[in-house]
């Protein structure tokens, strides 16, 4: 990284503030659509931090996969299940929230103490930065990480098939009343009822 020290510090501080603010927004905001878009902000900030860490390929992969795929998937899921429901109040819920906040703060204190106390063995002798990270990562993928690389492709295939099977609707063949409008797929009766209600209202 050829940036000056001050530029690095300032950009790190900006990215960290953006990331923590957006992450708190993801957790605390009540509207879940805002949470989904703030999650994209978290991912983009993390990608900027990766660039500060001399990892250009992983930063690009972070933007492509997380912002481009995972976040879009989450937004589609929100649109598919977006039912404005007021959750029934659970008694003594504030105790749970307080206990969880306490546990989170305690965990952070523990981790921070560990990070600050441990003497990390960093060799300060002019770190030889890898010039072309893509070539280096490719060498790793096709030499010593070849088996995990191949297994990852099998895992992606399994995830794709599993997601399709889990999210597929159960179609029922050729049944009950033909009173519905044409061009609608035959589905389970409950969903048919809701669809016909909506079309009659609209």
């Amino acid at each position, binding site marked *: 990284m050829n940036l000056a*020290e001050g530029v690095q*510090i300032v950009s790190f501080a900006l990215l*960290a503030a953006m*990331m*923590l603010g957006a*992450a708190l927004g*993801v*957790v605390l905001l009540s509207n*879940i659509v805002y949470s989904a878009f703030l*999650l994209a902000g*978290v*991912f983009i900030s*993390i990608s900027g*931090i*990766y660039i500060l860490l*001399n*990892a250009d390929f*992983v930063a690009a992969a*972070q933007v492509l996969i*997380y912002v481009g*795929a*995972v976040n879009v998937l*989450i937004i*589609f*899921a929100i649109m*598919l*299940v977006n039912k404005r*429901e007021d*959750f*029934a109040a*659970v008694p003594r819920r504030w105790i*749970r929230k307080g206990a*969880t906040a306490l*546990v*989170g703060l305690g*965990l*952070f204190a523990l*981790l*921070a103490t560990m*990070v600050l106390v441990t003497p*990390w063995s*960093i060799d300060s002798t002019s*770190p*030889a*930065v*890898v010039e072309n*990270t893509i070539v280096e*990562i490719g060498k*790793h*993928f096709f030499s010593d*990480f070849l088996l*995990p690389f191949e297994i*990852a492709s099998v*895992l*992606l295939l*399994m995830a794709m098939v599993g997601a*399709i099977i*889990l*999210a597929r609707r159960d179609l029922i063949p050729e049944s009950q009343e033909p009173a519905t409008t044409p061009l609608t797929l035959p589905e389970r009766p409950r*969903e048919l009822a809701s669809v016909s209600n909506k079309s009659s209202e609209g």
Partner: protein
Amino acid sequence: MHLQLEYFLLLAAALFCIGIYGLITSRNAVRVLMCVELLLNAVNLNLMGFSNFLDPTGIKGQVFTIFVITVAAAEAAVGLAIVLAIYRNRETIDMEQFNLLKW
């Protein structure tokens, strides 16, 4: 004043704790999945920091991060499919009512 390894580790720890808090307290099932993504990103940040500061020549941490991103994408797809299936069956996405296997 350099960028130290400790800054990145502290940032990752803070992100992880925020993710834990959201994972336990949120009641919307989709928000729980988003918090899982936050946790995985915090771990990725740790790996990248160690890769840059302790192993700058053979960047194995970046390879690990790419594997974690792959598994996270698969997890998001399957998790959202499960949320859709539960929503079709139970007509709700409230985590407090997903208690069929509770006792």
